[in-house]
């Protein structure tokens, strides 16, 4: 693995940045980790709160099997060790968003141990080759409630709807060396979570957020003191927070100061971090095993079930697209980055192959190119996404078949696609109605070519004298004369023969 070249140029030399991420990912489940209250986003305040979530006297937690299953599946997806014996601990501290006075988490025996995650090379981002980052652990824990500070002059308001929602805390090793690497790690992690279905990855709604640990050091030095910037909720903000924090630390160190190990907050409006005073008093969380919960023991059958339910994951899929379908590395990466895209593509590919009576690998390149350059572009223009695309896979396959069989040309196909998006009609209907069928009749094309050559005798002479670049001119003129409907292959062939 090559070292990152990301450096901060200080007055005293080059600094390297060391980054670790603790990602809190909301587990996709109907009900909370230890109670039957719903987890849906956006409910009325305290409407999704059970007596357990409100920590009424005598209330007890009972764990949700689905949350355990999703954590295990996530661990499997990053090739992590699954701990068949784990248990829940209490993390004790007082805060108004924490009704029990402790968070049920897993410190000593997390459910998932060591794993790893690989990001692809991205030269533009300074990531010169594929890199693998360590994941130290994944543990399951409760989310806290929410405090609102701007509703009343002297009071804060507490909403416990999120209190007790299941989170996976996914803790990376301090293996990242640039904001871009951290961004790529986060995107890749989100992609895997979505493939697995264990978290919707929706950062705006808070279902995924990162605590960003940053330190700086002179290249080759020991690890420096780190700060932790809490709850950063977008990939871009994470990258900004790292950059700001790294520069800030270099400034502090170069002006003779020391980095204090502290919790910081990210301000998205300024892109800066600041010390979080309210949480500054030295915490002593007094972790100990939760006596309300027994050790969690996972049976082999349960683990097998989890494994069997895993989908093909992005790395495997990407390799298959390249190896079996013959897609370019770029196209394969684009199509597999999001589970939704890959799923859409695979349905389209099956239909496109069927419509042309060919194998999937025969039409894969054409299909991938069309999806990426034509459909994505067209949808982008009208601000739509695949999910709500009026061009279904069925309709897309029809259009691709028209191209594949030579009924229309690629350039006509672009026009047809635009009309499809406008009208919702099928490609076949549009081509029929607009008379866009491609002319492949040799006689008709020959006649047009003859006309063009006759009208441009001077250019024909120049061409024959060696100005071969004029060939494109003749193609263009012919196509223009045929209103774009000439089969370009046939046009090329006839022109070549006639021009000699």
């Amino acid at each position: 693995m090559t070292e990152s070249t990301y450096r901060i140029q200080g007055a005293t030399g080059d600094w390297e940045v060391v980054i670790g991420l603790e990602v809190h990912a909301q587990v996709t489940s109907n009900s909370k980790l230890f109670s039957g209250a719903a987890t849906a986003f956006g409910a009325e305040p305290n409407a999704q709160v059970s007596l357990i979530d409100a920590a009424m006297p005598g209330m007890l937690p009972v764990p949700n099997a689905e949350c355990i299953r999703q954590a295990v599946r996530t661990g499997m997806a990053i090739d992590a060790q699954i701990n068949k014996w784990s248990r829940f601990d209490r993390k004790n501290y007082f805060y108004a968003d924490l009704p029990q006075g402790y968070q049920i988490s897993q410190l000593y025996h997390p459910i998932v141990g060591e794993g790893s995650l690989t990001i692809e090379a991205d030269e533009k981002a300074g990531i010169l080759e594929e890199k693998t980052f360590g994941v130290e652990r994944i543990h399951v824990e409760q989310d806290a409630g929410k405090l609102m500070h701007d509703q009343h002059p002297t009071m804060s308001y507490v909403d416990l709807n999120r209190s007790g929602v299941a989170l996976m805390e996914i803790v990376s090793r301090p293996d990242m060396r640039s904001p871009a690497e951290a961004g790529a790690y986060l995107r890749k992690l989100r992609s895997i979570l979505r493939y697995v279905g264990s978290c919707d990855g929706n950062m705006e709604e808070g279902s995924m957020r990162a605590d960003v640990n940053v330190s700086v050091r002179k290249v080759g030095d020991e690890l420096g003191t780190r700060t932790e910037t809490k709850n950063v909720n977008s990939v871009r903000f994470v990258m900004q927070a790292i950059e700001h924090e790294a520069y800030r630390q270099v400034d502090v160190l170069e002006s003779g100061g020391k980095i204090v190990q502290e919790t910081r907050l990210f301000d998205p409006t300024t892109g800066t971090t600041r010390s979080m005073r309210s949480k500054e008093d030295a915490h002593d969380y007094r972790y100990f095993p939760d006596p309300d919960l027994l050790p969690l023991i996972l049976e082999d059958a349960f683990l097998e079930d989890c494994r069997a339910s895993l989908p093909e994951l992005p790395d495997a899929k990407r390799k298959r697209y390249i190896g079996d379908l013959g897609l370019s590395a770029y196209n394969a990466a684009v199509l597999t980055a999001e589970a939704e895209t890959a799923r859409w593509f695979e349905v389209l590919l099956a239909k496109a192959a069927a419509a042309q009576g060919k194998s999937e690998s025969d039409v894969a390149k054409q299909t991938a190119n069309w999806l990426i350059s034509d459909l994505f572009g067209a949808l982008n223009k009208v601000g739509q996404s695949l999910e709500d695309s009026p061009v279904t896979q069925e309709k897309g396959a029809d259009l691709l078949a028209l191209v594949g069989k030579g009924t229309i040309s690629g350039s006509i196909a672009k026009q047809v696609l635009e009309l499809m998006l406008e009208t919702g009609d099928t490609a076949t209907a549009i081509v029929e109605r607009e008379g866009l069928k491609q002319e492949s009749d040799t006689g008709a094309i020959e006649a047009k070519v003859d006309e063009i050559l006759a009208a441009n005798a001077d250019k024909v002479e120049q061409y024959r004298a060696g100005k071969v670049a004029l060939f494109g001119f003749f193609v263009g003129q012919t196509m223009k004369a045929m209103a774009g409907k000439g089969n370009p292959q046939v046009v090329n062939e006839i022109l070549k023969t006639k021009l000699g």
Partner: protein
Amino acid sequence: MTDLTDLGVAAIRDGVATGAFSAVEVAEAFNANVAAAQDALNAFIVATPEKAIEAAQATDAKRAAGEDLGKMGGVPIGMKDLFATFGVQTTAASHILEGFVPQYESSVSQKLWDAGAGMLGKLNLDQFAMGSSNETSYFGNVISPWKRPGSNAQLAPGGSSGGSSAAIAARLCPAATGTDTGGSIRQPAAFTGISGIKPTYGRCSRWGVVAFASSLDQPGAMARDVTDCAIMLESMAGFDPKDATSLDLAVPEWTAALSADLKGKTVGIPREYRVDGMPAEIDAVWEQGIAWLKDAGATVLEVSLPHTKYALPTYYIIAPAEASSNLARYDGVRYGLRDLPEGAGLQDMYAATRAAGFGPEVKRRIMIGTYVLSAGFYDAYYTQAQKVRTLIARDFEQAFEQVDVLLTPTAPSAAFALGENVDDPLAMYLNDVFTVPASLAGLPAMSVPAGLDAQGLPLGLQIIGRPLDEQGVLNAALAIESRAQFTAKPERWW
């Protein structure tokens, strides 16, 4: 007609079922006793005569309709104020929960109501069940109905289920719920001449019971005799999906299998329970117990539980540690007391509320628990204690390879006077020296009255059984009960 309040659970249930008297008559009689004793004994924090009558009416109506009355049909009981009761103030005897009215019913109390029992009121206890004399309640001491002859000194009913023990001994209720964390059912039972059983950890649901120390807390039954305890325990016990530590097992018919015949059984006498300075009377009652069990057909064998002397210090690390965390929820935000000094921020509010709301013993234990869990001390105290706990449980396991049950005194003394131990926490903690080991190991254990000391105060004997062997415990207790013929009851002075 006999005084209905002299009857126990079985007699009341059967009398109501046969129509010898109505459930309402029973409830009225006990309601009257509760009211008459309240000023003197302070056994109840809240009396609920209307609830008792309501349940009794329902039972009487069922009887009229020929329906099944349930295992506790027509029996009014006292409910330790550690069990959440829907719509009825539940305080754990703490100022911090004063005025708290649960919108839910604890699983155990619900089962009792479902079995036909009615509620006479919420019984006083040591604050958050922390104490052995009932002197830590915010709502005042419970006074034992027992007196030393010729003395007016107020005696301790034991704790923490002191309201329960006092009320049963004084005939304010035929039975009551208790909870036992380190002896809180057994020691007060011994102090007041009644019976009390703590089942195997996990038999009775903890859901809706205000938590003290989760790995130790266990609800149980208190009544005047072994049979009544068995009936009540059958009604309280059973799997509860809301409690992750609840045992998913059917409730045995303990009452039906009660037998005082111990032929073929071996009773262990743990050598280490002969502690230095134990009063001769305690030793004597223990010897008497051994003789009774032999008489019942049992073989008696001395056994060793080598880690016994470490049980109390182990308990006084684990229980406060768990309590310090369990009691963190009392913060003035969602229910209970809120003390908000002028200009106070959130954290100041917490500190003020908890300072005003918790009593001194509760604070002491929270402080100890916080300390032993804090950074740098966790392994030396808490982890070490949990390891010693493993050894204590292993001692029992090994003993139970040779014997079926263990016989010990319940407490190292008879009831002491209120105020006697209150300034010395360690002396107070020593009260639980015989009861704590079984709690640490989660074992079923029971106290039965065995006799009176020279001052005429009750003494109890403790039977400890194998995990899940409540039957063995009840049977051995019954063998003692049938030989002890304990009929003493406190003179009514209130």
